[in-house]
């Protein structure tokens, strides 16, 4: 007891605490924990003043310093019941800050809330309402609905508006409250007090956003407010509400478009003007003249000096763009200039608009300019740009891409932008395109090679995923490679030790594929080509254009799948010569300096290749990463076998003598396995696999995860199901002149690298792999941003106005699409039960269902209403699904209201909102006496019964009179 007096006398006030914290800046945590100890002691005091100060300090510390105060919940409840206003205020603030659904003592506040809501002091009522609006639980909302109902028609505006606003929380916690309170809430739309009206519109706006359909019958009320009100806050809400209602009811849209345009023209408030603009472009977009006016207003916003208005203008433009491209065209200069605005919001928004404009006609140009912007931008915006290009281009299985060679090269270029952090996405797309678009594979392999061969790229961790994809593509489609030896060197270069293990595993596997390809080509095709009757064409191709050899090999590979060389050697030879002719035509003009020579697969070169692999992979066979170790050992094992048998392989009259040798057979098997094509996998493929009997999937696999955690393969494609190769010739895409240039450049890079590290083929030491390479691609800073802007203006002008598709030199290649489920299935939207209950209740009230009267008339009898509420909650559950508005016309569609109405004898009142009727209701509702209100409902009921038969006939008009 003594300590309690001491506490009260020497207690620090909140101000002392704040001063203390400011004085003890350096030892703040200690000071706060010491103060918390004080508070813990003081809060137990029997003196309410001491308790209140302690609680006030605690709330302060909790709100601003994140201190936990859940332990003090009971003290909060205690202090709530103090009769002193100051204490109550502190307690309610503390409750609003710290109570939540799981605070069990909130049950104890029911009585106190009831008392304070009924208080004669409006400020006490207001405190309680404030707290209630934040912490009301379903229990509290149910218990206190009668009090809120009474307060809804309070004569004091300061209470009335708060009672209206609190409804939102009550409805969200206890939807059945709508059966009691909804009509009074609607009456507040006609309140003479502007604050109450404003609050009511605020509530309806929130409700309509969640479930617009239920509030359609109130459209006449809202319309009246839209036309009559002079308060901008109210008008904004009204416009917002119509933005939600108009799309549901075309006649309503027709009606409101004029007043909304009127406000847009005349209002001086930018906020209201912008709201009208937004509503027109989102919900009334089919009204041409309204949209035109909105675009004029958007233009005003765009040229405003205020960056806020400019930002919002751009946002509105993004919304208009998909349907009205002309709106963007009219403002394109502003949009493009905004791309280099100082404000990141504005930059981002203009980027979005540009991406909306992208189509197959202009994707190449827009991407080009954007990539140039990206090179010069700060890292964040750079990645925004890259991200939007990637997502726009891959949208709907690369819908807008006509020229995949171009796109694949773009992906390669994007990878080399220094700030690029989109590795994962680029990786995915490279592999995805490889699997889906056969015609893009040649270019993919080229791009992949250029990436792999550049040692500088290995130093950038953001690129590792891309390199993984490049390695996979090069291995999988090695038959398109001009120079498999060079590829092998790139895959095995010492700097790959910079890569994470999972990606090195992909490298090793790709090297394996390349090896098999080389051996297979060496064993089975060189000799056939060599002894095939050398036609003049063939001769030309071999002498003039040695590069085409690899292409021949590629074609041969494909041939291999058509004809088994062992079974029908003859026909194979014929076909291959034909192929050679074809290829010569396409390749004859192109000099390919960096490609494989005529004698690419010689005994010697194969021997070198084997040595190279052995030296590079040798150390990896001891790797601690199991995935690398295993793959490396597989390769090494094969090489060992080959090396034993290779000397036995002798050339005999152009053909190999390979009796008694095992490895050619192995190579052939491996080659067959690797040339089985991998296809894209539907996202829901796994779901369609039936679960075998006895397989328990729900067991805890925690320990397994720990074991397998490390060897997740980066390439998901490794797990895809093999799609049997469709037996057709791969059309060889045209190659471009500049590609050879690029390849010589990177070859020289590699050569330089070799010079630098003399011991290229030896395993590297750790110091050897330091990141001493210059960035792959220095941004060209001298370029002027404005030039780019001009370029873009020009090109959009061309490409957007151009109505005709430009003739492409070649048709769009086939893109493999799966019939279903290319995208992950969108999880079925879960209906929110409470919202459903609420809209059910609201509809019941609006359609004049008798359920209202039953629960309302029971207001005085609390226990029964409580029980009823519970019952209703239960019965409403199964009938969850939201019905379409039209269904309301059909009373037997199984919605809660109709079901209940059956019990009550078809008491549906349809022509509910006719003005005459409304007046009557208002009269009736004006009487605040509860008993009278129940009496009113008796009258109500009887009238409904009288009108019953008529209702059956007049079914449709839900928004009567007003619209028709």
């Amino acid at each position, binding site marked *: 007891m003594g300590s309690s007096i001491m506490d009260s006398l020497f207690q620090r006030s*909140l*101000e002392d605490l*704040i001063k203390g914290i400011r004085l003890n800046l350096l030892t703040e945590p200690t000071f706060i924990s010491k103060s918390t100890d004080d508070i813990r002691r003081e809060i137990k005091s029997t003196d*309410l*003043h001491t308790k209140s100060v302690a609680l006030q300090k605690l709330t302060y510390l*909790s*709100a*601003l310093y*994140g*201190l*936990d*105060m859940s332990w003090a919940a009971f003290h909060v409840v205690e202090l709530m019941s103090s*009769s*002193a*206003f*100051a*204490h109550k*205020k502190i307690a309610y*603030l503390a409750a609003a800050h*710290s109570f939540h*659904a799981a605070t069990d003592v909130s049950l104890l506040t029911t009585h106190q809330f009831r008392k304070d809501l009924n208080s*004669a*002091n409006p*400020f006490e009522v207001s405190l309680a*309402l*404030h707290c209630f*609006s*934040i*912490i009301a639980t379903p229990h509290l909302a149910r218990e206190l609905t009668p009090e809120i109902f009474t307060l809804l028609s309070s004569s004091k505006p300061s209470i009335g*508006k*708060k009672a209206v*606003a*609190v409804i*939102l929380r009550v409805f969200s916690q206890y939807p059945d409250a709508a059966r009691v309170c909804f009509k009074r809430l609607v009456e507040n739309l006609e309140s003479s007090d502007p*604050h109450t009206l*404003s*609050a009511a519109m*605020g*509530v309806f*706006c*929130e409700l309509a*956003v969640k479930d617009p359909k239920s509030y359609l019958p109130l459209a006449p009320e809202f319309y009246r407010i839209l036309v009559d009100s002079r308060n901008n*806050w109210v008008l*904004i809400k009204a416009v*917002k509400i119509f933005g939600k209602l108009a799309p549901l009811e075309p006649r309503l849209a027709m009606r409101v478009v004029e007043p909304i345009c009127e406000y847009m023209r005349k209002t001086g408030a*930018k*906020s*209201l003007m*912008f*709201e009208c603009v937004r509503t027109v472009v989102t919900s009334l977009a089919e009204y041409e003249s309204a949209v035109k006016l909105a675009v004029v207003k958007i233009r005003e916003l765009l040229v405003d000096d205020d*960056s*806020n208005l400019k*930002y*919002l203008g751009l946002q509105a433009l993004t919304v208009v763009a998909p349907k009205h491209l002309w709106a963007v065209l009219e403002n394109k200069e502003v949009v493009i200039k905004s791309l280099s605005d*100082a*404000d*990141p*919001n*504005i930059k*981002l928004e203009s980027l979005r608009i540009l991406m909306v404009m992208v189509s197959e006609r202009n994707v190449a140009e827009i991407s080009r300019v954007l990539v140039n912007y990206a090179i010069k931008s700060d890292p964040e915006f750079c990645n925004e740009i890259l991200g939007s290009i990637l997502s726009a281009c891959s949208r709907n299985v690369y819908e807008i891409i006509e020229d995949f060679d171009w796109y694949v090269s773009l992906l390669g270029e994007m990878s080399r932008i220094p700030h690029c952090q989109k590795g994962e996405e680029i990786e995915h797309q490279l592999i995805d395109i490889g699997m889906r678009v056969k015609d893009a594979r040649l270019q993919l392999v080229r791009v992949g090679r250029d990436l792999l061969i550049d040692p500088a790229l290995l130093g950038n961790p953001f690129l590792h995923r891309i390199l993984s994809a490049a390695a996979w593509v090069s291995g999988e489609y090695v038959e398109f490679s001009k120079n498999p030896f060079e590829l092998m060197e790139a895959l095995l270069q010492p700097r790959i030790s910079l890569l994470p293990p999972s990606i090195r595993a992909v490298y090793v596997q790709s090297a394996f594929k390349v090896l098999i390809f080389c051996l297979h080509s060496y064993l089975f095709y060189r000799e056939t080509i060599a002894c095939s009757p050398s036609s003049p064409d063939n001769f030309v191709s071999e002498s003039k254009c040695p590069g085409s050899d690899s292409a021949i090999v590629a074609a041969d590979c494909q041939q291999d799948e058509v004809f088994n060389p062992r079974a029908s050697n003859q026909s194979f030879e014929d076909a291959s010569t034909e192929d050679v002719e074809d290829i010569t035509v396409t390749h004859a003009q192109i000099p390919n300096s960096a490609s494989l020579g005529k004698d690419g697969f010689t005994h010697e070169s194969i021997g070198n290749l084997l040595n190279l692999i052995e030296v590079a992979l040798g150390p990896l066979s001891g790797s601690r990463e199991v995935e690398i170790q295993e793959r490396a050992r597989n390769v090494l094992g094969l090489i060992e076998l080959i090396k034993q048998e290779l000397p036995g392989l002798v050339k005999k009259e152009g053909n190999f003598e390979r009796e008694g040798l095992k490895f050619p057979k192995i190579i052939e098997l491996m080659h067959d396995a690797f040339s089985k094509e991998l296809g894209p996998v539907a996202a829901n493929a796994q779901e369609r696999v039936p679960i075998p009997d006895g397989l328990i999937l729900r067991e805890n696999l925690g320990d397994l995860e720990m074991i397998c955690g490390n060897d997740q393969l980066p390439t998901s494609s490794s797990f895809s199901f093999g799609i049997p190769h469709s037996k057709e010739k791969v059309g060889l895409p045209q190659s471009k002149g500049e590609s050879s240039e690029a390849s010589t450049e990177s070859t020289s890079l590699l050569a330089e690298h070799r010079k630098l590290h003399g011991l290229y083929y030896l395993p590297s030491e750790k110091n050897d792999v330091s990141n001493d390479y210059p960035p792959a691609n220095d941004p060209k800073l001298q370029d002027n941003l404005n030039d780019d802007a001009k370029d873009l203006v020009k090109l959009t002008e061309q490409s957007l106005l151009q109505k005709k598709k430009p003739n492409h030199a070649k048709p769009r290649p086939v893109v493999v699409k799966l019939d279903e489920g290319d995208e992950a299935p969108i999880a079925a939207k879960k209906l929110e039960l409470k919202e459903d209950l609420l809209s059910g209740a609201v509809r019941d009230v609006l359609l004049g269902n008798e359920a209202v009267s039953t629960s309302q008339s029971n207001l005085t009898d609390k226990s029964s209403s409580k029980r009823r509420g519970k019952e209703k909650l239960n019965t409403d559950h199964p009938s969850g699904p939201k019905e379409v508005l039209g269904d309301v016309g059909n009373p037997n569609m199984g919605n809660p209201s109709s079901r209940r109405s059956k019990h009550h004898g078809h008491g549906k009142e349809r022509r509910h909102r006719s003005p005459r009727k409304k007046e009557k209701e208002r009269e009736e509702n004006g009487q605040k006496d509860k008993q009278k209100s129940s009496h009113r409902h008796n009258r109500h009921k009887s009238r409904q019964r009288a009108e019953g038969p008529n209702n059956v006939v007049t079914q449709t008009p839900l928004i009567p009179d007003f619209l028709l």
Partner: protein
Amino acid sequence: MIRAVIVMNTQGKPRLTKFYDYMPPEKQQELIRRVFGVLCSRAENVSNFVEADSVFGPDTRLVYKHYATLYFVFVFDSSENELAMLDLIQVLVETLDKCFKNVCELDIVFNYSKLHTILDEIIFGGQVLETSSAEVMKAVEEISRLETASNTITLVPKSISGWRS
């Protein structure tokens, strides 16, 4: 509705926080830190909106204003108008200015509970209820009178305490 109101200084120290949906204190602190992280990286004279989806979840926007050493931050959803929210910050600051005569950060530091009284008059459960600073002042003065009255009453025996009678 308005989801949260945060006043913090330019060092990221919160001075007033009000969340209209329950949020555990640690979570509140984390959100405040993230908001500060975004705000302090923004230059002067750029637009006052920030995309808040990544911080506060889908369908949220954030508008802020920078006065002297303080940031005033409102977080809200699509039921509110962005420019109206900007005006509302202005209303709040004007009211504070009238209340404290040339408001500065220290006023806000030391008048924590009065700040809540003012804010509660303007925003109720996430809904805007009052936009006239004169009206807000009137209500706040009356509440302060009640508070001091009830505080002095508690010093005398409880049986007498009594405007309620």
